[in-house]
């Protein structure tokens, strides 16, 4: 298992929920929890993943997502069991939409 942490600069977001959770920790899937973080203009990401050696891919996928969404002021916790980058981006999008009061 790899434990990774990242920080990205991001525009402040306007949360409408205290927390949101998407996905399940199962083969090829992951859970994404978004809660309030400590920095209004930054996003902290903490990852536990069963797939070792993929830190550069996580960095790229998360930086891409952070560049496209106002994630400032959030803390993202991820438990992963070998999800592909596309699934990671999908779950991040679902969780962030719920956090900001989108669907559901």
């Amino acid at each position: 298992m790899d434990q990774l942490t990242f920080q990205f600069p991001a525009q402040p977001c306007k949360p409408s929920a205290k927390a949101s959770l998407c996905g399940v920790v199962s083969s090829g899937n992951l859970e994404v929890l978004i809660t309030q973080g400590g920095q209004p203009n930054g996003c902290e990401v903490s990852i536990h993943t069963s797939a070792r050696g993929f830190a550069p891919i996580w960095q790229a996928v998360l930086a891409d997502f952070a560049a496209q969404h106002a994630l400032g002021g959030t803390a993202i916790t991820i438990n992963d069991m070998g999800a592909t980058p596309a699934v990671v981006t999908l779950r991040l999008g679902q969780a962030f939409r719920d956090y900001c009061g989108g669907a559901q």
Partner: protein
Amino acid sequence: MNLPQPSPPSRGPSFYEATARQRVNRLLDAQSFAEFLPPQSAHSSPHLALLDLPGALDDGVVIGSGTLGGKPVQIIAQEGQFLGGAVGEMHGAKIVGLLQRAIRDKPLAVLFLVDSGGVRLHEANAGLIALSEIMRAVLDTRAAGIPVFALIGGMCGAFGGMGIVSRLCSAILMSEQGRLALSGPEVIETVAGVEEFDSRDRALVWRVTGGKHRYLMGDCVALVEDDVEDFRQTIITLLAQWQENPPEPHALRAEQERLTQRCQQFSGMRDGLEVWAALGVPNPQQIPLLERDALVTLRQGLSL
């Protein structure tokens, strides 16, 4: 082209395919669910981390309270997708805590959405102890006059220790997709050989453990469609007329006697087809193809 279009069955979201959280939110009255120990409080397994495995923030089980048809209930939902819904130490502690809280809060019922292969082998004795504590807690809750209903319709069914827990509940509701047994098909095949049981024969697995078989055998009180809304309506109807009989030694002995006789009656049979024929079902091979309503009608016609 004027081909007749078969009208699709008007079903809601599948219970089988939903996650534990989706099941809870759709089963209870809208917006009524309040989760205890939500994922942000991060009660994940300490054992999995030691084994270098990623845990889940809720350790694979959702617990909380809500309303069902306006009546207060408490609810437990296992997540079958996370390690097969297996019961570890934290997972079990959450379930036991919910059941103990039910004794204090006195909800109308506890709904137990079982979706589990049994004990979490990674956690060994801690998982086994957790299961025995759940069994005790279910009986304690029932002894306090609060019914506990097992709802089985997930992809992992109810096997191993969770099969026992399900049968300790006040009643079981199942969909055709649900499965209930003690040793799972793969366990039987591993221990006794493929001649004894071919776990890859999916149709056989369902004929021996599936919801239709359990309903014909009287192991579940209701056979419901694979639809969260049908589970919801069935449990509302059941609750409206339910009289909880707390478990008593003489009733348990009578049940043990009944099961012993049943074991003798069907001894040597290797397939649900043989059992159904012995029950007096006219065309046993038709059972797997029957719709739910037709099967319910058929069972009412049997002298069981």
